[in-house]
């Protein structure tokens, strides 16, 4: 895509619509993060299209002063795929919730990812259906008590990153609502990546699933329970910056530098661009308390995108085609004259 001069501030992306999320909802922060990210991207404002399904999170497009489409539940990936194919010159963003993307929208979601169509999917994961007032989602923790699971769920939750990689995901990153800087940096990277990029943002629903991420993201302990990965950098974390991830056979292991003989050299260096998904899979699957939860860009690998190839294939065929218009077509092949 062609790029222009920076000319926007976050404010330019605010629409005139009153923001209607609950006070304290994590969605507000994510909205801020996107509005902060876009000015970094140098696209003209009219080239953005924000497309969502249904859910609290999916109200998002109304709050963006860009083109927007608040569609129907679960179908945003398909609609966004159509929009991007129809006009590859647009910067297309899908906004979706854990229910919207992974319950009813699961099929379109994995197929968009498989096709590697160049859209940016921001997945607001609050592990609950917010808009319908608190039923469990496919991401709710095992045993969650919700309105439809009064005795606790009996379902194993999806781990979004794992499913995405299983669906041939080429770009996966994780952030959380509270970290606007991290989110906004990741959104910029996601937009710059060619192909489907999925960013899971852990988001707090104050009303129906308050503090679901607290164990990991609570301010107290956060530094010891999360790791923010950066491509090319050592996998180091912790309040004191002395913990790290090392390899133990085929598994990952948390070690403390300077203890049990571990030095910084033993710590793995993050390679987001490795094609083989093995290690990335382990990283997305890390769960507290055994591991810190991984944030940042976990996987970012290059591959042909659907929209580019569509354009190229059409151009290649047209370059040598005999049929240039419908009249040509109608008169092509077997015809005969009646006189």
């Amino acid at each position, binding site marked *: 895509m062609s790029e222009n001069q920076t000319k926007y501030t976050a404010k330019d992306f605010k629409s005139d619509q009153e923001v209607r999320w609950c006070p304290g909802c994590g969605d507000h922060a994510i909205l801020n993060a996107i509005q902060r990210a876009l000015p970094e991207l140098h696209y003209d404002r009219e080239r953005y299209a924000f497309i969502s399904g249904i859910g609290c999170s999916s109200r998002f497009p109304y709050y963006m002063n860009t083109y927007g489409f608040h569609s129907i539940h679960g179908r945003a990936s398909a609609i966004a795929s159509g929009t991007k194919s129809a006009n590859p010159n647009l910067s297309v963003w899908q906004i979706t919730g854990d229910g919207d993307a992974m319950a009813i929208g699961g099929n*379109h979601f994995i197929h968009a990812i498989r096709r590697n169509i160049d859209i940016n999917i921001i997945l607001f994961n609050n592990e609950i259906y917010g808009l319908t007032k608190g039923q469990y989602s496919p991401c709710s923790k095992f045993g969650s008590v919700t309105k439809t699971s009064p005795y606790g769920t009996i379902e194993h939750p999806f781990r979004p990153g794992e499913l995405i990689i299983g669906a041939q995901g080429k770009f996966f990153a994780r952030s959380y609502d509270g970290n606007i800087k991290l989110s906004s940096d990741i959104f910029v990277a996601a937009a710059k990546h060619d192909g489907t990029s999925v960013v899971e943002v852990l988001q707090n629903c104050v009303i129906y699933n308050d503090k679901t991420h607290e164990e990991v993201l609570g301010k107290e302990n956060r530094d010891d329970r999360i790791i923010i990965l950066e491509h090319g950098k050592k996998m180091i974390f912790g309040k004191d910056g002395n913990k790290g991830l090392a390899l133990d056979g085929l598994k990952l292991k948390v070690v403390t530098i300077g203890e049990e003989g571990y030095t910084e050299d033993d710590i793995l260096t993050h390679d987001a661009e490795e094609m083989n998904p093995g290690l990335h899979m382990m990283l997305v699957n890390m769960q507290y308390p055994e591991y810190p939860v991984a944030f940042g860009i976990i996987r970012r690998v290059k591959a042909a995108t659907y929209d580019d190839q569509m354009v190229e294939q059409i151009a290649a065929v047209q370059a040598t085609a*005999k049929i240039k218009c419908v009249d040509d077509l109608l008169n092509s092949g077997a015809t005969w004259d009646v006189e």
Partner: protein
Amino acid sequence: MNKKANAVQLDEVTIRFSGDSGDGMQLTGTLFSNASALFGNDLSTFPDYPAEIRAPQGTVGGVSGFQVKFGHKEVNTPGDYCNILVAMNPAALKANVQWVKNGGTIIFDSNSFEPKNIARAGFKTEDPIKELGIEDFNIIPAPISNLTKEAVVGLGMDNKSILRCKNMFALGIVCYVFNRPLSFTEEYLENKFKKKPDVITANKLVLNAGYNYAETLEALTPTYEVAPAEIKKGKYRNMSGNQATAWGLLAASEKANLPMFIGSYPITPATEVLQELAKRKDLGVKSFQAEDEIAGICTSIGAAFAGNFAVTSTSGPGLALKSEALGLAVMTELPLVIVNVQRGGPSTGLPTKTEQSDLNQALYGRNGESPIPVIAASTPSDCFDYAFAAGKIAVEHMTPIILLTDGFLANGSEPWRIPSMSDYPEIKAPIVKEGTKDWMPYARDEEKMARTWAFPGTPGLEHRIGGLEKDKLKGSVSHDPINHEEMTAIRDEKVKRIANHIPDLEVVGPKEADLLVVGWGGTKGHLHTAVNELLEDGKSVALAHFNYINPLQKNVAEVFARYKKIVVCEINLGQFANYLRMNLQQFQYLQYNKVQGLPFTVIELKDHFNKLLEE
């Protein structure tokens, strides 16, 4: 090719080719039809595929047929019953004998009528002809397999490849009987197998062998001649319904000056629409084979949002899956053509058979008050025109529209006089231009009530649409009760106003009569033929055939009022009849319905109409 002296002149003839799925009967039929068309006959064809799965060779379930009727007058149907049946094996005879006219001619491959095959076809005795009670038909056993083998002796071909040429032998026979030059078929073979000269040689040899065999065969004399029809001058081509639909959409996209996008998922009998469009990268078509029908329509809605000419194609079960998203297209008022090629229902039903039973679904299959215009094509080639019309309405009225065709039209074909695109009207999309001041997404023009279309990418027109109720001007979300009532009325009225932009209903036959035959969609050929024949018999009857269903044309009531009785004929239980009852309650409607997965026959129609006329 020498014109035979003793050729008998006929007005029209129906031939049915039949054999195992692998016997190449579709090709044989198509080649014969093309040769006839080239010769100047009018014609109509219809393939009769076996049900979805290929059955084991030699069984009745695996029989594939192709029927063609050609004549020197206008031909509107592929014929009820055939004059000549070509049967490549006992199963083909068994499956098709019911479609042969009493006393008709049956040419069959006598080599294949050996005990094993006869048993496989489910005959109980060893003499199928007797078992079927058709001894007094004109039965012509021809040793097709053996003579095919003989024809290629010395070419060093294996048995399987040889038997694959059998169909050319049969074609040769029929070409002789109807005095068709072989040159057309030979040309075809040369083109098709350019890279396999052996195959060309073998097929040509067999073709000529069949021709020569027929010449020497007494039973076939005299030969027949169906003189060329007096059809309009011009350049012609053969068109099947699905191809015509795809091309008509392309024509609309070109006239609207919008790139074409099709999001679709394969389903019988609609798949060829997608396939035809997937071929058209030369015309810039973006074809998106989606993961399911929901994604098919949703990608198309996304493309319409982005400013493309958007299409999705499917059949009944797929249309059901698109129901929810259709509502989104209604609410967002985006142009979108939904092609539904009807097949036998309910559920998976009879996927390879024809039916007209998706009308209700097209009209009402959505939540809420969700009006969508519905139009229907009525012949294989007019699928082009109605696909074009659908595109024009969608874009100019900013609405989704459903185009109904059916399995009979989709797979049937007929010669089509190639039009020039300059004969078709422009399609004017209400696109908002950059710089338009005070633009409002849901403001609309007074006449059509269409809103305007702002493409993402246009500076200054940033806006948001969606499935929640919209403010009647700004398009933002509105929960206001009165606004909802107004918007409901607007969406309804917008579709009704399309009636101001479509041609009047025309009637075949007298302006007033005892009986008005009413039909819609794919039954036109049969109804037309039946009514014409009755008119020739001096009966007081006329035909009003509908292509525009929602909204109805403005003169319908006026037309209906001129006839004493109205009979609505449909391949369903009476969906259009009921639709007429609720729209034009003042008339009484008789019904004539058939739900057998088959088209009407002209004979049964005439019988029924005669009865009604006598009552």
